[in-house]
């Protein structure tokens, strides 16, 4: 009998390991034929640890299981799929999942992430095998035709980037996966790497084969130790099975993949800073031009894509560009892996076509706040994203429609705050975070962020408020238009939006003083 | 100059100029180019009374120079 206990680090953070141990111990004591499978997480994080028991009717879920409760649950028939207070029924039938369209996350939570044969049995390697029969140009054309856009935040069409690299002449090219998922409120990359690492390996291998890059790197932040282990283990297995190495799946083509680990720097998620860090250097931002597609890692043509972008590629190859292109909203094609985070009742992964409204995500999937208090604001797209109020609920979640409201999708993280939040503190934090994490290269970001904290403090303290409001506005302009990268360039977004939506939190006296 | 020094220098030159039967010409040219007349004369004087010490092209060279009235 198979029992599934997630190995995802979010599940671990609420005791999944001890639950798994408890089940094994009791099964041993009782002489039960139980195999505990450590699957990825289904993404219904508020239910973790979510134990699933395989039954003839399907996998029955038991939510929020604690190690202490395991004995009682087993005694009460959990291993037989009994209906208990903790039970959520057949997991696949859970409305939270049935409403979604899991493409990139199709296998996450289903399988043992490190079982390479199970990966194959669930459709893995089909995309790679197909790509190996095609020319690089044709693979790139398929990616272009699918409409896949970079999921890291900028939304740049992946196919165009790949085409630049495929057309570049060089003795060495690289594929770099940006797994420096540093935005607060985002965890999709981590969950995919922990929950279905072979998909990322497959996506990167396809990219490498397509553009003629023989080496790839996955840059993972050090805050993700479990993802690092998962990727390293999976890479070793893929090498052993011949999906990586000098002769990818017997094709005679070469692709080598390595994990590189960050060391506590948010800005290394910026692609050029990531390149510097991959070269072992200080993670400072490079000016563009030249673009990394032409002059990237070690000065060579380089594809840089986010985990979600690359993980979408196997499906696009396996099922065809049209299938992916058929999903989505306007110019935002395919699905987006939204992450519901912060003060939310039902937090987790929602993969669904672009175009779902913000309100549907938060109220429909999220079911309001965790604390039960009213929602005051939502920050979309990480620490550099705008704060919005409930007036934004009807906005379709897609690149252009969000941009039109002055917000941005970013990496698809949505952080919910209840009405206890003070938005001046949040605006100050945005500047503080920038001051803490700025690489320090360009002046607007390096000095501006520190001044931003000071000016906000003066505004809140009521010190020459109108003068300082004007100064803050000027500073935001200098940072937005003058910064070298998005770190300094977008920090004003949360600041300005907080100020605009919630001036009272800044103690602003009408008319200033 | 101490004539023994000149002998040492001459022999060193002889050792460093490979001989295919024409080394004495090269040695003579070298001494002609770089040695003062007095050095050549002193050396010849020594050579003249110690010919046994110079069985090789160096002796031929200094003799040649002398015959051209350059030593």
């Amino acid at each position, binding site marked *: 009998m198979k029992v599934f206990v997630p190995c995802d*680090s979010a599940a671990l953070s609420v005791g999944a390991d001890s639950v798994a141990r408890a089940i094994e111990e009791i099964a041993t004591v009782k002489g039960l034929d139980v195999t505990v499978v450590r699957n990825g997480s289904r993404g219904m994080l508020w239910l973790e640890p979510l134990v699933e028991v395989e039954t003839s009717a399907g996998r029955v879920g038991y939510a929020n299981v604690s190690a202490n409760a395991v004995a009682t649950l087993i005694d009460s028939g959990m291993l037989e799929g009994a209906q208990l207070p903790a039970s959520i029924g057949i997991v696949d039938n859970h409305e939270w999942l049935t409403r979604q369209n899991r493409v990139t996350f199709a296998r996450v939570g289903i399988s043992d992430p490190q079982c390479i044969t199970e990966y194959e049995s669930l459709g893995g390697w089909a995309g790679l095998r197909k790509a190996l029969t095609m020319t690089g140009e044709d693979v790139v054309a398929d990616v272009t035709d699918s409409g896949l856009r970079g999921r890291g935040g900028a939304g740049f069409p992946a196919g165009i980037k790949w085409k630049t690299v495929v057309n570049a002449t060089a003795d060495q090219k690289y594929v770099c996966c940006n797994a420096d998922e540093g935005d607060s409120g985002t965890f999709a990359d981590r969950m995919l790497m922990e929950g279905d690492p072979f998909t990322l390996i497959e996506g990167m291998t396809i990219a490498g084969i397509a553009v003629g890059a023989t080496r790839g790197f996955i840059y993972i932040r050090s805050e993700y130790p479990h993802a690092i282990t998962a990727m390293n283990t999976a890479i070793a297995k893929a090498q052993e099975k011949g999906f990586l190495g000098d002769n990818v799946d017997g094709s005679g083509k070469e692709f080598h993949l390595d994990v590189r680990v960050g060391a506590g720097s948010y800005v290394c998620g910026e692609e050029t800073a990531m390149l510097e*860090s991959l070269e*072992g*250097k*200080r993670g400072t931002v490079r000016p563009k031009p030249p673009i990394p597609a032409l002059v990237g890692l070690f000065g060579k043509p380089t594809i840089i894509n986010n985990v979600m972008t690359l993980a979408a590629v196997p499906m696009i190859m396996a099922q065809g560009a049209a299938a992916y292109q058929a999903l989505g909203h306007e110019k935002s094609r395919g699905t987006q892996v939204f992450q519901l985070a912060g003060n939310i009742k039902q937090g987790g992964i929602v993969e669904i076509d672009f175009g779902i409204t913000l309100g549907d995500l938060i109220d429909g999937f999220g079911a309001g706040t965790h604390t039960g208090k009213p929602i005051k604001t939502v920050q979309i797209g990480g620490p550099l994203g705008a704060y919005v109020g409930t007036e934004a609920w009807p906005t379709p979640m897609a690149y252009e429609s969000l941009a039109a409201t002055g917000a941005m999708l970013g990496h698809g993280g949505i952080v919910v705050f209840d009405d206890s939040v003070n938005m001046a503190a949040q605006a100050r*934090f945005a500047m503080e975070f920038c001051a803490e994490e700025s690489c320090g290269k360009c002046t607007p970001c390096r000095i501006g962020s520190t001044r931003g904290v000071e000016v906000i403090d003066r505004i809140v303290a009521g010190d020459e408020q109108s003068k300082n409001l004007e100064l803050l506005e000027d500073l935001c302009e200098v940072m937005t238009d003058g910064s070298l990268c998005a770190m300094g360039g977008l920090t004003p977004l949360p600041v300005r939006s907080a100020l605009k939506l919630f001036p009272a939190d800044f103690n602003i006296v009408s008319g200033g003083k | 100059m101490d004539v023994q020094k000149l002998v040492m220098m001459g022999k060193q030159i002889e050792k460093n100029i490979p001989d295919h039967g024409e080394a004495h010409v090269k040695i003579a040219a070298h001494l002609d180019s770089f040695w003062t007349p007095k050095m050549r004369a002193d050396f010849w004087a020594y050579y003249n009374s110690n010919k046994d010490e110079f069985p090789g092209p160096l002796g031929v060279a200094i003799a040649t120079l002398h015959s051209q009235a350059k030593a």
Partner: protein
Amino acid sequence: MTQFVVEDLERTLAPFRGDASAILRALHEVQSELGFVPDSALDVIAKTCNVSRAEVYGVFTFYSDFRATPPAACVVKVCVAEACQANGSREVVADLKAQGYDVHTRKAVDGIQVEQAFCLGNCALGPAAFVNGQPIGRATAESLLAAAREVSK
């Protein structure tokens, strides 16, 4: 640093010999070996990777992970980024400070040291934390200190 440790490090770092792109990896390696990066290790890394000491120093000081002194027996990292703020991480940090654990000074008390982190990727179950690398969700000052004491026992 004793000669013995230097030789140990040279052995540990041998795979990076002559590789200027390995500074960051070498620093990770040293820190995982010793728990911190002693000043003399910077010179060993520089020599190994065939780079200048200044380059190593620049990298060492850029990344917040690296420490110049040995860590406490237990290191607690509390996320203070937005999603965890929304779930009260500011309060957790304040509670910890009230008990003597300051995320800014990182001063160790009873073998426990508390640091702040920006996002641990557990944003739906915040406040998120790590106790010596072990993830903790829905953290409170009490739950963290309890876990930390368990670890440093």
